[in-house]
């Protein structure tokens, strides 16, 4: 049975690799292990081990969740430019994009789980087994669209990979409709996630209709930034086929996305500061500090500096088409958007609280450790996905009737 052989070889494949591969996996597993001890502590003592309190009842976990939903959405939307501009290995980009999306969604769901006070009652939220308050609760919408998106983004790449392994072309009538469906769905998951905050009249900072467009614009920056770095790493380590021209084109599109992101932020800043009603307070807390509290001020200004620098790097052709500056720009965007959309979005929603109290929140070591653990887990499964996907797509890992059964530690690189 070839299916059994395929399974056995897949398992063997992930255990074989270069020294760098082993080190990378060991590094991630060590972080995951440490995070588990912190999470056990949180399970045991309760969420008191975090810095969240009644005044600021969501923090680092929900910030990461929001950011990762954006990454997941944008990873799939990469398919559009790949198709329009005829990036050569379109199938590779689809598979990589969807697997990146799937990993990001898994991380996002894990962050929700980490934030959940009663994970033991998780079954209450499962449709038909528990009670899902659909359509009233936006969180119920999010549960549905995120899980649907996860399923969509695992079925398509796994199907393409298995077909390729068996030396057959994937059936277009099956793949194309699903890929086309995943594009509006990607927009959908991020819109629903924005509406989750947007729909709360109690929190004027979030209750702005610009929130969903801003979410999408910033996702179009952070998702591709992550993909640019991953493409290059995989090109070096696993011999993934991708040309520099494709990277530069993505970078150009990111410059436009960042412009829109900054423009929308500017529009919001104008409205809040010019009208200067009492709803300005959260914005003031974020950018200037409020009544002597300014924990987030250095963070948001670093984020602003990073985003603007990256925008310029990606706008100017000279720096955009240089791999070193391109990578600096990508890293700046990854961090800049993370601050803007993580702590910078969630925390000011709670400050000042509805009765005017200011409780300053910054995550503590427990929250940071658990968050790092979830990131490490996401990267770990993504690494395993890639370990299988790339050799299959290169044609190195094929049905036993086409190729030798040996599994190489590394396949030769391809010149960029």
């Amino acid at each position: 049975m070839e299916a059994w052989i395929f399974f056995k070889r897949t398992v063997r494949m992930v255990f074989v690799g270069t020294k760098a591969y082993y080190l990378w996996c060991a590094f991630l597993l060590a972080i995951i292990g440490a995070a588990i001890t912190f999470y056990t502590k949180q399970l045991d003592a309760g969420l008191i081990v975090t810095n969240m309190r009644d005044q600021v009842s969501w923090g680092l976990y929900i910030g990461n969740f929001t950011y990762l939903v954006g990454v997941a959405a944008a990873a799939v939307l990469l398919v559009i430019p790949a198709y329009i501009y005829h990036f050569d290995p379109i199938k590779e980009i689809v598979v990589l994009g969807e697997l990146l999306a799937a990993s990001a969604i898994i991380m996002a769901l894990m962050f929700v789980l980490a934030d959940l006070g009663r994970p033991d009652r998780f079954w209450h939220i499962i449709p038909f087994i528990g009670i899902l308050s659909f359509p009233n609760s936006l969180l119920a919408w999010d549960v549905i669209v995120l899980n649907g998106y996860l399923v969509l983004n695992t079925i398509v790449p796994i199907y393409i990979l298995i077909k390729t392994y068996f030396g057959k072309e994937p059936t277009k009538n099956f793949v194309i409709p699903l890929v086309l469906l995943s594009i509006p769905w990607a927009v959908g998951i991020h819109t629903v996630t924005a509406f989750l905050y947007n729909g709360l009249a109690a929190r004027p900072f979030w209750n702005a209709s610009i929130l969903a467009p801003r979410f999408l614009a910033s996702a179009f920056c952070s998702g591709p930034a992550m993909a640019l770095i991953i493409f290059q790493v995989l090109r070096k380590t696993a011999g993934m086929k991708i040309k520099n021209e494709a990277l530069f084109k993505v970078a150009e599109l990111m410059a436009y996305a960042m412009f829109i992101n900054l423009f929308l932020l500017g529009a919001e800043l104008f409205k809040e500061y010019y009208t200067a009603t009492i709803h300005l307070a959260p914005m003031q807390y974020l950018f200037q500090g409020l009544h002597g509290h300014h924990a987030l001020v250095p963070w948001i200004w670093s984020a602003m500096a990073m985003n603007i620098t990256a925008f310029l790097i990606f706008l100017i052709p000279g720096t955009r088409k240089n791999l070193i500056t391109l990578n600096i720009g990508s890293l700046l965007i990854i961090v800049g958007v993370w601050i803007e959309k993580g702590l910078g979005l969630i925390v000011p929603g709670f400050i000042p609280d509805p009765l005017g109290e200011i409780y300053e929140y910054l995550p503590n070591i427990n929250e940071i450790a658990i968050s790092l653990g979830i990131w490490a887990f996401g990267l770990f499964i993504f690494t395993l996905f890639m370990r299988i996907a790339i050799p299959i797509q290169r044609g190195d890992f094929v049905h036993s009737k086409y190729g030798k059964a040996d599994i190489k530690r590394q396949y030769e690189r391809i010149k960029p």
Partner: protein
Amino acid sequence: MKMMSMGALAALSLGSSSCTQAQMEEFLQKRFREMTEAEKKEVIQRLEETYLRKYGKKFGISAQPAGYGVLWGYGLDLSRCIGCRRCVYACVKENNQSRINPQLQWIRVVRLKKGSLINLENAEHYYNPETVPEPGFMYMPVQCQHCENPPCVRVCPVKATWKEPDGIVVVDYNWCIGCRYCMAACPYKGRVFNWSEPNIPADELNTDVHYLGNRPRMKNVVEKCTFCVQRVRNGRYPACVEACPTGARKFGNLLDPSSEIRYLIENKRVFRLKEDLNTEPKFYYFFSA
């Protein structure tokens, strides 16, 4: 089918060896509103046994439903409130809130400079003078406003919180998953969270409790003011009303034309907090003088 999948889930998430029968039953327990009368009785009996083991005290847990023709409303006379916070502590005692680390309170009294009422940004939450009232200030107690259109209920992803027929917004502590979406949605800070296992000295426990009200809670669930559901459905006033030394707190049936609360609404100049949000609170502030 449903029971089978739930059983499988239970086994998966708890591990069958290390959990007692009671824990298993608690894990599989349905949402309160879905229970039949017999199931409610069973759950209450099990809870009473659990409380007896845990606190060494005999609890009486009521599941008394809302009465017909009742819609509870609250009145608060801001010209009489002196900011003494007796209501806060009477509430903590009556409703079995966690006492230390953290201390949970369902009522928050804020101190406002005279001349500013709507903008709460300058409200002082932790005022602590020798004596109250202080000249130049007024005090405004805030608790769950029992909205007719409660945003917290709308956002709950598992319907663990709802509005009872008598208008009281309650929480099923055994159904809450601890996501805290309701806390983000509440414009009145009406909800507090058990960030850790609640701490109550055994001799301070109130054993006269309601399932949807003041029964002891567990860690990582949300809780809130219930207008003392255990008292008001038995013809008593909420503890805060009884504790107020100046008589600033009023309570009654909005559907009864001869009630005190109806008199106040018709004859005083009442207002409700953040009326612009359309939450329709049943908590009326007014000035008698």
